[in-house]
């Protein structure tokens, strides 16, 4: 492959190859303060390739390839090459990661205890995680929570946070410009901008945490908090896990243990300040 880049994110090493220089330059800038894999090896390989040979130059079309792929995935334009690289890494995790149980959740940690925020896309978990990350919490990840099935701990996977539309404005007001990737417009999800996790999150990307609370945040409703029954939590977490089914008995044991030992709350919030306030209340209760 013409252009190459290797990245270590938490316990996972990626190597990304590309037919074009631009997407990897953008990726390298985003992950400039991340280490390269110490052993020079990769857990997963991503490739950005032209859909057809002539599409390398003429109306460049970036097909996402790699160890694990979705056969009918639509290619992206070269302008969105950075997105293609990020999607490629997501796909490797979603389809290929079997060492850890994956939950589709944002996780943050403080004083060794981790908060798991999960729910539908657009519920605001990435934004909440990003905000908490700027308020003394350590961001462990905004897309995938990695559960170690042997010891029940969560491992960090702090990728660049993918902010969309309004969330971009919220974070631009709070975080220096140098920590943002390029503004990507015209994507299927609207406007996207990546936020680089802070030094705190990157330095400690190998430190596990003990899960303490599961939250189901829902943005845009009047403030409300309710408990969620363990069976419902289990069902919602399996629906949100891309690899639960492939993990058999180990996955079942790890997830039943998680939901039967952890409290779970559904929180509705009209604005982020309310949510942040609620999270601080929970943290104090848990610490007590």
């Amino acid at each position, binding site marked *: 492959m013409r252009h190459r880049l290797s990245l270590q994110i938490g316990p996972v090493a990626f190597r990304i190859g590309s037919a074009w220089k631009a997407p990897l330059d953008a990726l390298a800038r985003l992950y400039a303060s991340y280490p390269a894999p110490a052993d020079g090896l990769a857990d997963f390989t991503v490739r950005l390739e032209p859909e057809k040979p002539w599409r390398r130059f003429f109306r460049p079309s970036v097909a996402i390839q790699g160890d694990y792929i979705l056969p009918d995935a639509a290619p992206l334009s070269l302008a969105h090459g950075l997105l293609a690289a990020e999607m490629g890494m997501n796909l490797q995790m979603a389809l290929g990661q079997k060492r850890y149980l994956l939950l589709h959740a944002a996780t943050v940690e403080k004083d060794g205890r981790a908060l798991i925020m999960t729910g539908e896309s657009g519920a605001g978990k990435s934004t909440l995680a990003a905000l908490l990350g700027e308020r003394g919490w350590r961001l462990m990840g905004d897309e995938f929570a990695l559960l170690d099935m042997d010891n029940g701990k969560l491992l960090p996977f702090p990728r660049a946070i993918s902010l969309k539309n309004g969330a971009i404005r919220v974070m631009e007001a709070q975080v220096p410009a140098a920590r943002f990737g390029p503004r990507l417009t015209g994507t299927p999800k609207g406007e996207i901008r990546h936020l680089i996790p802070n030094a705190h999150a990157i330095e400690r990307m190998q430190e596990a945490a003990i899960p303490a609370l599961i939250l189901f945040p829902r943005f845009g409703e009047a403030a409300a908090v309710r408990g969620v*029954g*363990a*069976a419902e939590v*289990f*069902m919602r977490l*399996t629906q949100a896990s891309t690899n*639960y*089914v492939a993990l*058999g*008995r180990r996955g*079942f*044991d790890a997830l*039943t243990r998680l*939901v*039967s030992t952890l409290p779970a709350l559904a929180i509705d919030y009209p604005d982020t300040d309310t949510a942040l306030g609620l999270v601080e209340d929970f943290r104090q209760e848990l610490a007590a």
Partner: protein
Amino acid sequence: MAGPVYIADEEAELTSVSLDGLCLLFHAPSGMTHIVATPAPEILAMLRSGPADAAELLRRLSAHYAFEGEAAAGALAARLEELESAGLVRRA
């Protein structure tokens, strides 16, 4: 007229965890997880003492769990169909 005779897997093949009133089952032969409610776990328990058709199952359920009444036979038939689709119960 006797209906089909049903068999359930050995107890060792099923791992069961109860979580607020529901039963999570991990079925080793299929690698699948099922979330079931009463009377499904009870039906599986009653089949462990040996294969049975619907009528015999109804008798066992009434004896152990006060499972009776007008709707009981219909409910049992519906649950058996679901358990058979899920592969947790099969025909002899």
